[in-house]
């Protein structure tokens, strides 16, 4: 089981890193999600892999599972959900405003600043 989990985390991380290095926003968002799945599983295993044990000290059980990593993972999942939602909305908005989903910052200053002064639109 250790081997399975370790290689699973490794595969998720590798896939996530590869996708983050691409130039389009969609793969980057998916890559970030993969990375966060990897870290969630990683956190989960940090209290050692124990099977069939309660997450509290119980006199009738032979041992216990460390409950803290579950609390950490829960918090991390909630935060990651929020972040993923935000970055999805942002990349959609950037796509709609700039017309492409390229990640690169345009160095050309005049493309954004001249023309319609979108920065100054008060809403």
């Amino acid at each position, binding site marked *: 089981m250790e081997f399975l989990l370790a290689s699973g985390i490794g595969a998720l991380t590798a896939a996530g890193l590869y996708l983050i290095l691409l130039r389009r926003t969609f793969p980057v968002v998916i890559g*970030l999600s993969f990375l966060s799945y990897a870290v969630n599983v990683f956190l989960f295993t*940090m209290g050692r892999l124990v099977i069939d044990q309660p997450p509290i000290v119980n006199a009738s059980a032979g041992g216990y599972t460390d409950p803290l990593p579950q609390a*950490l993972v829960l918090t991390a999942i909630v935060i990651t959900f929020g972040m993923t939602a*935000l*970055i999805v909305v942002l990349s959609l908005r950037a796509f709609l405003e700039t017309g492409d989903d390229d*990640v690169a910052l345009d160095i050309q200053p005049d493309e*954004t600043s001249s023309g319609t002064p*979108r920065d100054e*639109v008060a809403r």
Partner: protein
Amino acid sequence: MTNQWLIIPVAIPALTAAILVLAMRYSLTGQRIVSVTATALQLAVAIGLYVLAGDGEPHTYLLGNWPAPFGIVLVLDRLAATMLLLAGLLAFGVVLAAIGEWDKRGRHFHALFQFQMLGINGAFLTGDLFNLFVFFEVLLIASYGLMLHGGGAHRMKAGFHYIAINLIGSTVFLFAVGTIYSVTGTLNMADLAVKVPHVAAANQALLAAGALLLLTVFAIKSAMVPLHWWLPPAYGSTSPPAAALFAIMTKVGAYSIIRVYTLIFGAGAGPLADIATPWILPAGILTLVLGTIGVLASRRVLDLVCYSLIASMGTLLIAIGLNSAAGLAAALYYAVQSTIASAALFLLAGLLAPEKGSRATFGWFPQYTDVFAGFYFLLAIAMVGMPPLAGFVGKLLILDAGRAASSTATVWPAILITSLLLILGFARAGIQLFWNPHPVAETPAPRDVPMAPIFVIAGMIAAVAALSVFAGPVMDDMTAAAEQLLSPQRYIAAVLRPQTAANLAGE
């Protein structure tokens, strides 16, 4: 020793932000009144806590009264109090400066601002690593909103970069926290400080990996080379008040470095003692050099300010990397002055370079020339570190600490040469801005310069001047803070004592 006041700097912005979002969505005037009042209250509480921490004893607040290593604990020592006070001062200035113009450009500026203060105050007060992560996320989520405040295509793309790099940073933070937890079984910083020296030899490598991963995260936050490149596009694209508030976010990274690598992996950490020190000093020097090169190369006034912020972070990291009481005290002093000076510079840059047409050159528009030129001159002096303002005192203290730590050969040339180059960079920009203004292609329509930022910048300059006038008493406090950091026994005792007391009572 639970002290209820410690939760107040976290509670005020949390409640205020909720009220602003829920009850005052449509009343900008109401939002302004509530937000300014709440920020003033935070400043008052921060002053009170600073006085409280002056007795030299770390104060704690146990959330839900759970004993320390099991529950969440907030800790106030001199370092935390200093940073809280700095955050309070800065926030008060920024919220005033934002009123009138910038808070109109999008909804919820004040609510986001308060959420950001919640994250910043919490990060300074928290006593365990996972809550440091949570407060980092809180301040980052708010900063994403603030950064995108006002919209615009360029800002969207820069914002995507900023959010992506910080999400990767958060992931690395979680990996580091998980690794450290797997070896020590705790995330409370005081408890870690007790347990880290006794980790089995077989697990030392794992713990070292966790410690250095953590340094990577803090390096991203504090814009340490080679993880500095996200800062200029992000801060340079956002609105000036947001950038001014962000000036303290890099200090949150520096604060975390100081906290973790004096308390947990400090001199008493057994085989891992001072594990980060060999990295921080060279990285600080590189940061300073690259920031200076950026200042020389930048063609927009906002870029200039961004790179000068990176250079000042380099100076700060050098002082931290010296790893001595004198170095830490100098670092704290320099952090306070450089935060205020760079925030004021961001506000000034917002006045100097209206966004339109200002991306390529130093844009300028011709009202209030004398006032702006005077502000620029004074702030450049503060930022570069020339007498008589506090930047000079700070750099002098760092040079002195470098001599005492026998790092003269590396620290002195780095700081002195870059200071000269920074003077050149700021002087060149000043000449282009004020003596040889080449107006932007389409001359901006004359408009009233908002008065609020002008008064705030003047106030911040007065604060920097006051720092140099009262350098003696301030340095006494900073030295006391540094000594408290380097002997963490009292911190550990203050946090863990309730647990021992509870154990004694229960058994």
